């Protein structure tokens, strides 16, 4: 049962990686990386149940939080001139 979910997750991760490599814009790649991270969380959780030792769930839990923080940090870096400022760079467009 968990083998089916693992195979589905691995296939989807390959497809997502293809989008991350091919994505024409920065945001496509960022979306693919974020989606890949979510699937990694699910894969770690499912793989723990597949091997009969659900002890990897802590790693999945931490990875779920770090994945979100990483995405938002990179987005803020590209959205704002200075990641610490709150002023949109409207003059650049």
């Amino acid at each position, binding site marked *: *049962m*968990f083998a*089916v*979910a693992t*195979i*589905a*997750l691995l*296939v*989807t*991760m*390959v*497809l*997502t990686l*293809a*989008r991350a490599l091919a994505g024409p*814009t*920065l*945001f*496509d790649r*960022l*979306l*693919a990386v*974020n*989606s890949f991270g*979510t*699937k990694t*969380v*699910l894969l770690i*959780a*499912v793989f*723990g*149940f597949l091997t009969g030792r*659900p002890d990897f*769930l*802590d790693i*999945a*839990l931490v990875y*779920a*939080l770090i*994945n*979100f923080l990483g*995405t*938002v940090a990179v*987005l803020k870096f*590209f*959205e704002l001139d200075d990641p610490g400022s709150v002023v*949109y760079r*409207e003059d650049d*467009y």
Partner: protein
Amino acid sequence: MLEWLVWLLSWALVLVGSLFIVAGGVGMVRLPDLYTRLHAASVTDTGGAIVLSFALLLQAVFVFGNTIAAIKVSLILFFTLFTAPTASHALAKSALLSGQVPLGAGGEPLLESPEEAVRLATTPVGADDDEDAPHPSTAPAIDGGAGADSTGGARRSGSEDPSPDASV
């Protein structure tokens, strides 16, 4: 009887979750636009994660007898449900701010220019509605609905305001 029921339900949940996940992955490759790919990724992040996590919960409680694992799975589900929509929203807004124009069904751009996308992302929703309310292309649609067009209805259609503009 109980283990048979748990077995059947777990299989069903795992199969449905795998279907959601693979569908999202295929959509990530095949859909034509950043904003539509965002939709495909959200299918995987919410639908797949919820259904698969419920399968894991069932297995952890009834097969493994591991309550701690069940609690951790529900925590993972909880955090995923909070972070995935937030990340999608931040990504869409950041893309609009950088001038990414959404494409329509026929591949035509829905906004006139990248500046229009930036304006859409920077103006607050309420101010945008007040400006567009007397627009000739949107006025008949508002009148066609029930006469009491509340701000909630106008706010809901705020994200689709540019499409009538592009068709004119």
